[in-house]
């Protein structure tokens, strides 16, 4: 292992954790963790999902109490009993999942988090000021529900900066940003560092860690496996430290150029849709074709109509006019989701718990959720009584679990008992098990650890190579470049033209996601 152990970053560390341990029941989420953060450094915390990063950070921030171990802040032993205590010490946190109220304005949301009361217009003014200083422009009077994820993140960061913290903890901040937005964020972070503030940066995007961070601490299974200088490492050496073994590289065999005409399996033509609520995005004139054997990646920052597009393709929202959505040559515009599944389509939504699966139902029941209509013969018996065939469900679940390498602690656990990665493997496996001819997946590896993500991506590529049409909607550009044959981007409810992956660059993808790729609009008509 190429771990270069570095002694304490500075003589006077800002924060030092010694032998920090947190035990939940029988699980050691954090096991004797030592961590030193110096003043004015960007310190990366690396690790797969479930490595203990969140638990560690919550202990530092006061949201959780350590089972044992000590925390020193500016040389003093401290007990951080609550987030409020954390903030008063000077520790600020920007969570991965924002805690903002959609129906309130940016300024109101900021006011809610302040420990001291202050008049709203004063807060709005301060927020705007800080925004300008650090390159985080926001409109304090905008309703949060109307803002993009990137803008919401800015509110979270500003809210954190208003407390004037010495240490800012950022949890996976770039997972929701375009490359250009991420670049802006890095400028902000570097500026904060130059002012002597420290940043604890949690990420599994190794490229940006190498680019941005001064030091890194790598966690695996709740233990520190190494400290290193990320700039002296390669992405693969960092990945190896995180995972403990080499990461599977996606194999994407080249498509054979055949003379045969491509067979379109999924077509969307001139699909427009009004917003369905105050926080929903309208779709404008969407056109796309996905042929057999093709994987189309749809890039875009969250909140640009991807969920609406997903719902429109899946049939959870049906079209008013016929001829908009065609699955395997048949007009599906006005069919419900079950009928579309029967045409050979399968869907994996973004939200795992509460949409694609029900948290407190067992895996077998969650299998039935999306398969009861297509596999009626297998899973439902007893004629009109429609009895649920538990034994066939158990068999099918077992098949999926072994095929997708789903790790679970019980025979048939509730969906909520699985980690994000394992549940996602199960939900993708649930659809692959049917060998669908069309598969639409929204954010397949969101919040999924590297090992599981690689397995999921390979499974998606394989499905396309076996002759299905696959659409992957994702915010993760690296992922799309890894698996797509064609790529398009969504912005403000519009979809760009699909471009062969060979013709794509990161920069062009970023421009498409920003809606600035001029070629996409002019060519749009030709696609349909």
């Amino acid at each position, binding site marked *: 292992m190429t771990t270069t152990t570095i002694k304490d970053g500075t003589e006077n560390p800002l924060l030092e954790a010694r032998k920090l341990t947190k035990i939940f029941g029988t699980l050691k989420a954090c096991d004797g963790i030592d961590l030193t953060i110096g003043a004015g450094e960007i310190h990366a915390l690396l690790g797969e999902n479930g490595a203990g990063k969140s638990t560690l950070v919550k202990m530092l921030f006061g949201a959780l109490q350590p089972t044992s171990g000590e925390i020193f802040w500016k040389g003093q032993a401290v007990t951080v009993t609550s987030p409020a205590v954390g903030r008063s010490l000077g520790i600020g946190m920007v969570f991965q999942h924002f*805690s903002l109220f959609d129906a309130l304005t940016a300024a109101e949301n900021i006011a809610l988090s302040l420990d001291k009361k202050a008049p709203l217009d004063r807060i709005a003014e301060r927020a705007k000021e800080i925004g300008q200083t650090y390159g985080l422009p926001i409109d304090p009077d905008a309703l949060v529900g109307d803002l993009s994820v990137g803008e919401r993140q800015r509110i979270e960061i500003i809210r954190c900066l208003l407390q004037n913290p010495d240490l800012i903890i950022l949890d996976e901040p770039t997972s929701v940003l375009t490359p250009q937005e991420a670049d802006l964020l890095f400028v902000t972070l570097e500026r904060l560092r130059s002012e002597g503030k420290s940043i604890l940066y949690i990420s599994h995007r190794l490229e940006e860690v190498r680019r941005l961070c001064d030091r890194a601490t790598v966690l695996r299974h709740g233990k520190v496996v190494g400290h290193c200088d990320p700039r002296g490492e390669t992405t693969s050496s960092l990945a190896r430290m995180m995972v403990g073994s080499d990461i599977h590289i996606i194999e994407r065999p080249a498509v054979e150029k055949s003379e045969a005409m491509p067979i379109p399996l999924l077509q969307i033509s001139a699909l427009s849709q009004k917003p369905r609520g105050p926080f929903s995005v309208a779709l404008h004139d969407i056109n796309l074709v996905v042929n057999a054997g093709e994987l189309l990646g749809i890039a875009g920052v969250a909140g640009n109509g991807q969920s609406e597009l997903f719902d429109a393709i899946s049939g959870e929202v049906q079209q008013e006019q016929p001829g908009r959505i065609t699955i395997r040559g048949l007009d599906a515009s006005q069919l419900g989701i079950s009928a579309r599944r029967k045409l050979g389509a399968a869907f994996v939504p973004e939200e795992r718990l509460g949409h694609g699966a029900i948290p407190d139902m067992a895996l077998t029941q969650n299998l039935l959720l999306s398969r009861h209509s297509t596999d009626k013969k297998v899973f439902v018996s007893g004629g009109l009584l*429609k009895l649920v065939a538990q034994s066939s469900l158990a068999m099918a679940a077992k098949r999926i679990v072994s095929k997708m390498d789903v790790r679970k602690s019980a025979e048939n656990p509730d969906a909520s008992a699985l980690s994000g990665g394992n549940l996602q493997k199960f939900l993708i496996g649930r659809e692959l098990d049917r060998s669908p001819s069309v598969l639409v997946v929204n954010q397949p590896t969101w919040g999924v650890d590297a090992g599981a993500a690689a397995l999921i991506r390979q499974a998606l590529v394989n499905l396309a190579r076996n002759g299905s049409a696959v659409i992957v909607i994702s915010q993760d550009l690296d992922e799309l470049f890894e698996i797509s044959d064609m790529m398009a981007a969504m912005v403000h409810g519009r979809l760009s033209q699909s471009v062969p992956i060979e013709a794509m660059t990161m920069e062009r993808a970023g421009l498409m996601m920003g809606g600035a790729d001029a070629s996409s609009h002019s060519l749009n008509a030709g696609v349909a």
Partner: protein
Amino acid sequence: MRLELVRRPQHSALFSALSPFIALFLTLIAGAILFTILGKNPLAALYSYFVEPLTEVWSIHELLIKAAPLILIAVGLSVCFLSNNWNIGAEGQFIAGGIAGSILPIVFPDFQGWYVLPLMLLLGMAGGAAYATIPAFLKVRFNTNEILTSLMLVYVAQLFLDWLVRGPWRNPQGYNFPETIQFNASAILPEIWTASGRAHWGFILAVLAAFAVWFTLSRTLSGFEIKVFGRSARAGRFAGFSAGKLTFFAFLISGALAGLAGIAEVSGAVGQLRTSISPGYGFTAIIVAFLGRLNPLGIVAAGLVLALTYLGGEAAQISLGVSEKSARIFQGIMLFFILASDTLIYYRIRIVSRLGDAAAKGA
């Protein structure tokens, strides 16, 4: 200082199973305290309330009479509540069923034969179901709150029954008492075991209904659909189920069972229509449904427990001289403890001094 409910990371399976018993136990304690304050001997009071009615065969019959409508209604309500349809108007559906089923013996008293009773029961179910479709339709079509509409329709039904019995359906030979004619023999739901007491077939119907609904919920795709929608409407749509259809289904089932309870009560226990045919069965059944953990088999047991409070109320009125309304107090206390223990199994109470704040706990 304020109190906050914080979700427990894990809830105890043991206490989940014990929760109805804990609630019962706490209800008894609270009842004992109440009787002590009233100056009664608490042990004697609880004895006459909860034990004495069980010591004689005739009063066990009375228990079954009271339990039958509670179980029938609560079983139907479990379908509603499990699917997130908050039907609070079972009392009205009960009355609608009673009225609809009584059309035959009151309007056509000469229409007699073995087929009259089955027809009455079917009419009762149809009446209750039809009355329940009103809040279902309003919810599906106009997105109204079914709690309010179903509850308000209870008062409509009560007033309509009052008007019928005082007006068009009043017994002409009844000395102006607000009562209809007595049902003829073929319109009376027979007793199960005439020799020992007057419990009628309503209880058997209730147990059958409980088994049927239990089977549907636990074994069939429809039951699955109900449970899916109760947990997440979004996942239900993803599964391809229709929320509107399910709302109608749940209200129809619970309306039909409440209607059946209504006509069974009128035809089995009363034998005519009166201005009031229910001591609040439709509302008490809500407690029964939750005490039975929304499980139809649990509801059979819970129905018997709540029926006991009605009998105990009557017994206590005679032996202790407290109002029979004390039964309502017991029911209220019990609902409070059921909900409280269920809540405390999933949440713990935290006392927050001034500094705590909600936003920071976002993760």
